[in-house]
């Protein structure tokens, strides 16, 4: 692997790790498979591209993309909690709807190129760090988001959110509105995903309606690779593991591409990586432990007594 490919992988890994942290919130913290991600990632990228090509600030573009992602997550959560549609189906519906919404955001175009526009990655272009401007900006943004997320998950509200994914019965018994927590969690998750999309759009200087396909799988891959290799406790290590998993995923892809894998096979490889990583997790835990834990995971219906 060339030095440039290596550097590029680290940069991409850092930026995509923000998306992966979003997937971590929905998949691990809330225990919900959320496919909204495929749509909200593009929503973030499209929002940012439109704003920036219209002369907007690249920083504000990320914040507004975050808000747009939050809105998308809210819709998924509301379909689930208010209309009682299964979470997975809710997210598929919103993902599909977002495809049209994203095209509308982009004014009917399938892609927007950002030529000679400002981006957050130019921040250090005039300084001594010029050669690593992208890397530094990506690392700083990731760190800020990681720290904010860590502190949030350790607030009273964050505790309530985490417990909701664990045990809704207990959460309601503790006076917490579990539906509200699901809305908050999915909003936050998709907000992060969209922010990541906005950062990627600036990084590669374009937004494309199809850039989100399989994004949730990449997020899952990052989360699971991180867990398998870097462990699952305590919380700060889990979050850091997601970031490292995201970087590792990019390195694996870059390595495969460097070995002559056609870029069109990328999605296939992503799916295989996730399948392998998921099964590796179950082997690592050991079959015995899995079995001994089973009784506690069986949701029993006790209420007909």
């Amino acid at each position: 692997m060339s030095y440039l490919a290596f550097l590029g992988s680290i940069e991409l890994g850092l930026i995509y790790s923000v998306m992966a942290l979003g997937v971590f919130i929905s998949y691990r913290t809330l225990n919900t498979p959320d496919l909204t991600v495929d749509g909200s990632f593009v929503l973030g990228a499209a929002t940012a591209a439109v704003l920036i090509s219209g002369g907007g600030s690249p920083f504000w573009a990320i914040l507004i993309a975050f808000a747009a992602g939050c809105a998308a997550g809210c819709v998924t959560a509301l379909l689930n909690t208010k209309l009682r549609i299964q979470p997975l189906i809710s997210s598929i519906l919103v993902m599909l709807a977002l495809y049209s919404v994203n095209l509308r955001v982009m004014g009917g175009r399938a892609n927007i190129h950002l030529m000679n526009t400002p981006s957050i990655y130019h921040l250090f272009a005039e300084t001594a760090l010029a050669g690593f401007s992208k890397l530094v900006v990506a690392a700083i943004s990731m760190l800020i988001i990681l720290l904010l997320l860590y502190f949030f998950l350790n607030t009273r509200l964050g505790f309530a959110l985490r417990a909701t994914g664990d045990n809704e019965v207990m959460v309601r018994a503790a006076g917490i509105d579990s539906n509200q927590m699901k809305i908050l969690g999915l909003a936050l998750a998709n907000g992060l995903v969209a922010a990541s999309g906005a950062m990627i759009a600036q990084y590669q200087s374009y937004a494309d309606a199809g850039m989100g396909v399989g994004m949730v799988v990449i997020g899952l891959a990052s989360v699971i690779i991180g867990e398998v290799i870097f462990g699952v406790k305590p919380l700060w290590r889990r979050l850091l593991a997601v970031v490292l998993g995201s970087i590792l995923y990019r390195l694996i892809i870059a390595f495969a591409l460097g070995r002559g894998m056609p870029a069109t096979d990328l999605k296939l490889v992503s799916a295989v990586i996730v399948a392998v990583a998921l099964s590796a997790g179950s082997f690592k835990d050991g079959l015995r432990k899995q079995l001994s834990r089973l009784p506690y995971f069986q949701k029993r219906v006790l209420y007909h007594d």
Partner: protein
Amino acid sequence: MIKITGLTKIFDKGTINEKTALDNINLTLAEGEFVTVIGGNGAGKSTLLNCIAGVHPVDAGQIVLNSVDVTEMPEHKRSRWLGRVFQDPALGTAFDMTIEENLAIAYCKNKRRGLQPGLRRHEQQYFREQLALLGLGLENRLKDKVSLLSGGQRQALTVLMATIVQPKLLLLDEHTAALDPLTARKVLALTKQLVAENKLSTLMITHNMKEALEVGSRTIMMHNGKIILDLQGAERAELTVEKLIALFEERSGAYLANDRLLLN
């Protein structure tokens, strides 16, 4: 204190599986009263507790808690006055969070949940003291995940969580039934101690008739969604398990063919 009038709950109404789980239940609990609830499977015991807790909407009747009509109130809102412990030790705690985090969640029951730190140092100290009272050594394991605890330890922790903010009514749904006999006895002793210290009004479902008569100050027996026996005072003090069974058969007109109830 708590007043239930005409409470009726029908599952799968209008279908072939229609079942009247609660049939016009009237029950009043005085402040600090400890009531044990017995009855066979399908008698309506758990449904009664779940209706009080707001898990199920009711079909008719009224539930008044502390002079507030909570009949239509969503589950999480009335939780502020209730403490609940479930039969399944997995239901009372968040297994992927630490002991202190679980206690913090329970401790914030009536507080606003915003961006304040989830755990403060003085709270940690308080949790350590409270855990020490359980006598299970959990005070040294504040940072352990609950998934590492045994069923009995989890139930003990859940009882503490249910009472750490004093509830107006404690609902115990066979909370010792899933434990081995020795652990069950420990958890029950702990429950009695906490109830006595805080003078809590309590509704406890049990399958153990002996326990039902020994624990608390009043016993009600349910059958087919009705309360068929309500015993307290001298009448209850003189009762033995054998007499209780005879009373049950007399009142319900049914033969008490329930191994779980009899063998205990």
